[in-house]
C-alpha cells in the first residue's frame, strides 16, 4: 500500500465517522422521541445544530485550557477513528490494536475534564467527578470483554479479527463464539456512550450540574462533534468485535445502527441511575457475565 493511499484513508476515516455519527445522533433522538410519543427532529437537525452552535455570537471562554480541552476532545477522536478499521480501509489498525484504541479513547475524556476544570464552576467539576467515576464503572467489564476477545482471536489487531470472522462466515462471529462476552459488552455499551439511563453526569434535565454548564457556542459544538464520534466509535467497535465487521458498507452500517438502536430502545424503560448505582450495576451484572464468558472462552 502506497503512502499516498494510506494518507487518503487517514483523511477519509474520520470524515466518514463524523457523517455516520451525525446519522446515529439523529437515530437516537428519533428513537427517544418515538418512545415518548413525539414526532422527533427533522432529518437534517444534527447538521443544523452544529451550524447553529459554531455560528453563535456569544462564545464564552474561561481561558486557554478551556479551549485546549475542547481541542483535545475532538482531536483525540479524530485520531482514534484511524485505528478503527471499516470496510475497505484499515488505516493504522496494525500500528495500535485494541488495547491502544481503548487508551486513545480516554484522551478525549481527559481533554473534556481539563477543559471543564478551568471553568471554575463547581457544577462542572461535580459533573466531571461523576463522569470519571462512570468511566471506572464501565471500563471494568469492558476490559474483561477486551481480554476475552483478544484471547479468542489470538491477536489485538482489529483488522485481523475482522478477517478471521469473515473467513469463517456468521457462525464464527464473535457473538456466536462468545455469546456471554457479547452480552456483557452490550450491557456496557450505553454506559460507554453516556446515554440513557447512565447519563447522570451530563444531567440533561438539571442543566446546572454537568460538564456542559460553561460550554457555549463552539465549545458546545465541539462536544456535539465529540458525541457523534463517540456513538460511531462504540457502534463500530462492537460490530468489529462481535458481528464480523462489515463485508461492505451496506451491511456494515446496518450492523452499526442496529448495535446502537437495540440497547437504546430498551434503555428508555429504565430510570436514570445515580452515580453509585451505575458503579454497583456495572460491577455486578456485566462483570459477572463477562467473567463467566471468560471462563467459557479460556476453558
Amino acid at each position, binding site marked *: 500500500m502506497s503512502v499516498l493511499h494510506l494518507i487518503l484513508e487517514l483523511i477519509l476515516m474520520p470524515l466518514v465517522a463524523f457523517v455516520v455519527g451525525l446519522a446515529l445522533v439523529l437515530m437516537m433522538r428519533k428513537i427517544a422521541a418515538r418512545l415518548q410519543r413525539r414526532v422527533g427532529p427533522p432529518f437534517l437537525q444534527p447538521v443544523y445544530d452544529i451550524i447553529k452552535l459554531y455560528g453563535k455570537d456569544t462564545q464564552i471562554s474561561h481561558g486557554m485550557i478551556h479551549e485546549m480541552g475542547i481541542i483535545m476532545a475532538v482531536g483525540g477522536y479524530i485520531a482514534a477513528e484511524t485505528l478503527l478499521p471499516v470496510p475497505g480501509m484499515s488505516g493504522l489498525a496494525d500500528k495500535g490494536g485494541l488495547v491502544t484504541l481503548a487508551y486513545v479513547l480516554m484522551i478525549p475524556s481527559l481533554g473534556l475534564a481539563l477543559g471543564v*476544570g478551568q471553568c471554575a464552576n463547581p457544577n462542572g467539576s461535580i459533573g466531571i467527578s461523576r463522569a470519571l467515576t462512570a468511566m471506572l464503572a464501565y471500563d471494568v467489564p469492558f*476490559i474483561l470483554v477486551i481480554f476475552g476477545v483478544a484471547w479468542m482471536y489470538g491477536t489485538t489487531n482489529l483488522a485481523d479479527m475482522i478477517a478471521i470472522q469473515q473467513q469463517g462466515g456468521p457462525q464464527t462471529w464473535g457473538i456466536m463464539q462468545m455469546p456471554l462476552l457479547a452480552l456483557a459488552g452490550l450491557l456496557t455499551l450505553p454506559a460507554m456512550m453516556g446515554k440513557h439511563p447512565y447519563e447522570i453526569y451530563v444531567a440533561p434535565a438539571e442543566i446546572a450540574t454537568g460538564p456542559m454548564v460553561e460550554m457555549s457556542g463552539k465549545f458546545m459544538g465541539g462536544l456535539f462533534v465529540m458525541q457523534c464520534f463517540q456513538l460511531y466509535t462504540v457502534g463500530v467497535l462492537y460490530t468489529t468485535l462481535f458481528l464480523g465487521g462489515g463485508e461492505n458498507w451496506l451491511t456494515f452500517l446496518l450492523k452499526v445502527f442496529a448495535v446502537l438502536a437495540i440497547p437504546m430502545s430498551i434503555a428508555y424503560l429504565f430510570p436514570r441511575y445515580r452515580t453509585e448505582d451505575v458503579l454497583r450495576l456495572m460491577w455486578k451484572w456485566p462483570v459477572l457475565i463477562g467473567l463467566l464468558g471468560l471462563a467459557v472462552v479460556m476453558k
Partner: protein
Amino acid sequence: MTPLDQLLLLSGLSVLAIWLIGNRQISGWSATLFYAIQGVALLRMSGLAYGEVQGIESAVTLQVLEHALHWRFDGLSWFFALITIGAAFLVSWFAGGEWGQRYREAGGSLRVFHTALALNVFAMLVLLASGDLLSLFIGWELVSWASFLMMALGSATAMRYAMRYLSYAFAGAMAVLGALALVYAETGSFEFQALKEAVPAMDSASLWALLILFSAGFGVKMALLPLHLWQAKAYSETPGPGAAFLGAISSRMGLFALVVVLVQLLGVAQLSDMQLLFTFFSAHDLLAWVAIFTLIFATFTALRQHDARRLLAWHGIGQGGYMLLGVVIADDLGSAGGLMHVFNHATYQAALFMVVTAVIHRTGTSDLNKLGGLVARMPLSFFVMLIGIIGLAGLPPMNGFVSKWLIYRSLIIDGSPLLFLGAVVGTLGTILSVYKLIHNTFLGQLRVEHVDVEEAPWSMMIPMLMLSAIIFVTGYFPGLVLAWVSAVQAAVGLPVLDYTLGGVSMEKGGLDMIWIVSVLLVGFGIGTLIFLGTGRSKRVHQLDNYAGGHFLTAETRYQYSDNFYPGLMHLIGPWYRKSFRWAERGLVSAIDSASLLMQGLYRQTQPAFYLLVVVVFALSWVIVQ
C-alpha cells in the same frame, strides 16, 4: 583502573567535595557539575547498554575472611545507574537556584542536603556494581542508611517516619542476612554463580525460605504490600528535590536487587515450579498477585490523599507493582515493560514532585484544599504537570503508556485475565487520582491570596522542561529506551525483546508509537484548526460564570478535594479499613509486650514467678521422662 573504578571514584570524590564546599549557594550548581561528570564517566561504559560489552569488572577486590568481594557493571547496572545519575543531575540543578537560597535562609543546611544526595548516588552505584551476594548486602546497607539520611532532613514528622523506615529497613536487612546465611550453608560461597548452580539441587523448603527472606528484605525498599506503610509519609516529608530523587529512583533499588536474586539467580522457571501447598498457586503467581495488590491498594489510597506530595508518594508505591509484575511475567514483552517502567516512572515522578515543589515554593503549601486555579499564574508548570500525569496515568502519547502496553500485551498472551483486570483497574484509579491532583492544583478557582503568584523560577523550570521533553520523546520513540532494556534482558538472562524504534513489531498486534503519536498530533492540529476557524470567543473573568442562579464571589470557596469522588466513595468508602495500620500496630504492641517480658526476666522483677515456672518445667520434665 577500569571505567567502573573511575566512576565509583568520581562519585566518592563528589561526596567529599560537596562536603568541603559546605553550606554555600554554589554547592547546588557544583553538585550538578559533579553529576554531569559522573554521567560522562557512565556514558564511557555505554557499550554495556547496547550489548557491545558484556561486563566491566572493577580492579578493586576485598578479601573478607576467605571470601573475595568484587564489583562489576553489566547492562542491568548501567540502566539503573543511568537513571540514578540522571535523576541526581536534574534534581541538583532544580535545587541549585532559588530553591537552595530559600532553603538556606529558612535554616536548612545545603551542605547536609547535597552531601546526603551525593551519598545516596554513591551508595546506589556501589549497590548496582555488586558482583557477589556479600557486596550486594554491603551495598544494600549503604543505600538504606543513605536514604535515611535524606529522609531525616525534613521536619519533625519526617524524622518520625524516617525512624519508622529505619525499623523496617533493619527488619529487611535481617531477612537478607538470614537468606545469606542460608545460601552460605547450602553452597559454602557468596558467589552469584555458586548459588545459581546450587539452585536446581535445593529442596523446596530452603527455596521457599530463600524466596521469602529475599523478597521481604528487598521488598521493604520497594514498599511491596504489606511492607508499604513507611514509604509515602517518609518520602513526602523529605525536602522537595530530595523527595523527587527518592521518588524517582531510590525505592527501585529494591527492584534491582529482586531482579538479581529472583530472575538472575533463582530463575523465574524455578519460581513457577514451586507450588504453594494445597493450592493452585505457585511462587510465581504469588509474586504477581503481591504486585497487583500493591498496585491497586496504593493507587486507591492515593485517591484519598489531600496533600499533593503524599498523593504522589502513594502512586510511587503503586507503580512499583507494575514493575514487579512485568519482571515476574518474565517473557520478552512483560519484562521489557516492567524494566522500561523503571525509567518511565523515574522521569514523570521526578517531574511531578518538582512541579509540586515549585508550587510550594510559590504558594507555601501542597495542601490540595488550599490551592487551585494556578494555571493562570504558572502555565508552564501546569504543562509539566499535565505531561507528568498523562505519563503516570499511562495514556498515549507519553512514555508511561508504552511500558504499560507491553505489560498488558504480555498478560493477554500469557492468558491471565484477572492480573490484566487488576493492572487496568490500577490505571483507571490513577486517572481519577491524577485528575484530582491537577484539578485541585491548577484548575478551578484561583484563590484571592494567589492572585499575584509568579511562574516558577527558571532554575526550577529548566530541569522540569527537560524531564517533560524526555517523557514525550521516549513516548514518541520508545525504541530509544527499549534498546537499553533489551541489553538488561540479555544481561540477566531473560528473553530479549525484538523492538523497533516505534515500539514492537508483532504479527498478532504490535505497537508503533511513531504512527500513533503522529496521528494524535495531527488530530489535535485539525481540532485546533476547527476551533480557531470558527467564531471568536470572548475571555471572561473566572467568577463570571453560570452557577444555577447563585453568584460565585471570591469568598465563595468551592475547590474541594475531600471526597472529590463522592459517588465512588459511597460504594468503596467502607472498604478502606486501615487493616494494614491495625496489623502494624498489633505487631508493634506484640513486640512491646515481648520485650517488656524479656526486660522483666532480665531484671528479675518477679523471682517467685520464675521459680514457679522453673519448678513446673522441671516437674513436667521429670514426669515425661
